[in-house]
């Protein structure tokens, strides 16, 4: 799958886009909009989601959760249609045998233990062996040792994992996860990412919302970028990342001789501009480098530093936050 991006003669094009719907799409969204009075939460979004892991990427408030809620039938769209596994997303409860949702909110029945909560979900799914399914699901998120404790005593990460277990207890074909890595520690996060990837490899359709670009890179094959309620990009993660990388980016650099480093860097064709940045403590000024190829710059910086005998203290991308990437993508 290739990336679909807004294209135009100017560096920044304007969304929204409407990528082609893949033939094997298990989720098909067409012309989806949701508004609340004058506030538009989601605007004319169309996309298809295939089996495997797809990330729904966007800054906070972009419309990700609203989109996920409409995909599960919790919210009625203002306009547009959604079909999940060939059925309308809303109105047919039999669909929920094959769909699981990990909601973003933390609230779980506090009086239940983790085991009871997951088992409740198994019973509500009418599984023939709810205990076996519960044990299996809790094992997947490595929560069995704490499953006998009341949920009210769980940490944020444990609550997140028990919600994932509850969503997986019936082994759904389609799994929708709203910010599933929130609140998890690095070890849990690595485990969760591996679990998401495994579910994708098993042929399930996993749609994961996130606002953290570098996290998404670790598990998603494809991404849907949503910003200000509009679909701004869709397709292969790396292709989109490469397209983003093609455009000017700013990198901050601190070293022990900023002026000499600036003079050396400005000779290279990928550096568009360099400016000195005063530091509050009066130490060596920092450098802000604008580049047309950030990857090449990252490769070049240590080489130049070594050649010039300059010590590097810090290299950081100024606009690597997702918000700035989205700002570029939607042409703000």
């Amino acid at each position, binding site marked *: 799958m290739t990336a679909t991006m807004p294209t135009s003669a100017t560096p920044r094009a304007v969304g929204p886009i409407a990528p082609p719907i893949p033939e094997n799409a298990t989720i098909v969204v067409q012309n989806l909009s949701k508004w609340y009075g004058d506030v538009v939460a989601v605007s004319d979004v169309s996309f298809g989601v295939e089996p495997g892991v797809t990330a729904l990427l966007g800054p906070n408030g972009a419309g990700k959760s609203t989109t996920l809620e409409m995909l*599960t039938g*919790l919210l009625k769209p203002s306009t547009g249609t959604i079909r999940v596994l060939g059925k309308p997303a809303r109105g047919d409860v039999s669909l*929920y*045998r094959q769909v699981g949702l990990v909601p973003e909110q933390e609230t779980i*029945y506090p009086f239940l*233990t983790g085991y009871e909560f997951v088992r409740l979900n198994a019973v509500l799914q009418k599984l023939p062996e709810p205990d076996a399914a519960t044990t299996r699901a809790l094992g997947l998120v490595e929560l069995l040792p704490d499953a006998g404790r009341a949920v009210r005593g769980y940490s944020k990460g444990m609550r997140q994992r028990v919600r994932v277990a509850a969503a997986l207890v019936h082994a759904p074909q389609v799994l929708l996860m709203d910010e599933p890595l929130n609140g998890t520690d690095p070890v849990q996060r690595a485990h969760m990412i591996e679990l998401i990837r495994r579910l994708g490899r098993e042929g399930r359709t996993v749609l994961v919302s996130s606002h953290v670009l570098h996290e998404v890179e670790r598990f998603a094959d494809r991404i849907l970028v949503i910003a200000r309620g509009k679909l701004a990009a869709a397709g292969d993660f790396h292709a989109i990342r490469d397209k983003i990388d093609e455009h000017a980016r700013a990198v901050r650099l601190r070293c022990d001789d900023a002026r000499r480093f600036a003079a050396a860097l400005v000779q290279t064709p990928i550096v568009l501009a360099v400016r000195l940045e005063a530091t509050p403590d009066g130490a060596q000024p920092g450098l802000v480098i604008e580049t047309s190829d950030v990857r090449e710059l990252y490769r070049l910086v240590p080489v130049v530093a070594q050649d010039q005998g300059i010590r590097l203290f810090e290299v950081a991308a100024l606009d690597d936050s997702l918000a700035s990437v989205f700002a570029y993508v939607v042409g703000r």
Partner: protein
Amino acid sequence: MSAPAVTPPHTGRPILATLPIFDLSLRAFSGGKAIRVVALFALVPTLFAGIFWLDAAGQTSREFLNDLFRELIAPTILPLAVLTLGTNALGNEIEDRTMVYLVLKPIARWRIVAEKFLAVVAVGTLLLWLGVALTWFVTMRSSAGDNLDMLVAIELAVLAAVLGYGSLFMAVSLLVPRALLAGIIYTLLWETTIARFIPGVRLVSVRHYVVSIYGRILDDPQFLVEQAMHLGPAVIVIVVLTVVALALTSWRLATMNLE
């Protein structure tokens, strides 16, 4: 998906497979504030019975209990107690978003509503029956055995009230913002005040049917209920109200946005 085989931890009593939402709701009620509020409401008439015990002021026990039921329990205690449970049953789960765990399951919405309603009826009836029984006992004391007819009449009227008000307030909790406040205003303004004093209006109050059921079952000429309906029609009205309110609640749960 595969996972290592591990012995499940000790978890206490498992959720009932046949009525999981009913069981869940009972557990939610048992640890919540609502049940304590209902218990307090249920005990208020006993307080009055205790005062009567100290000074009967010329009233017989039957007269006192009849007045207490018709003037306090039926128009105020029953609706307020059931309001607490009825608005809590669905409203709280929608507010704290745990409702998501129920509605995203292959379960018909009417089934969710029916099991929730069953929990409201079970908890409400049990507590109010106990409260009424205690009030009856404190009022009658040594003559309790001769006044069992009053206990039966009041308890059956309480059941009718729990069915009618329970279904009505569950519907209100999904249809009206600030349902608890709306229910309190409805109870104090309509059931307690307007429907008692304006003859035509009482036909559209749950209280009138509850008091009619009480009066017809008691069947004591001394305690005739004004404009009382016959038992059959009164029961039918309560049943129809319950079915319509539950159907409305199910429809609302199926069509509303759960954000």
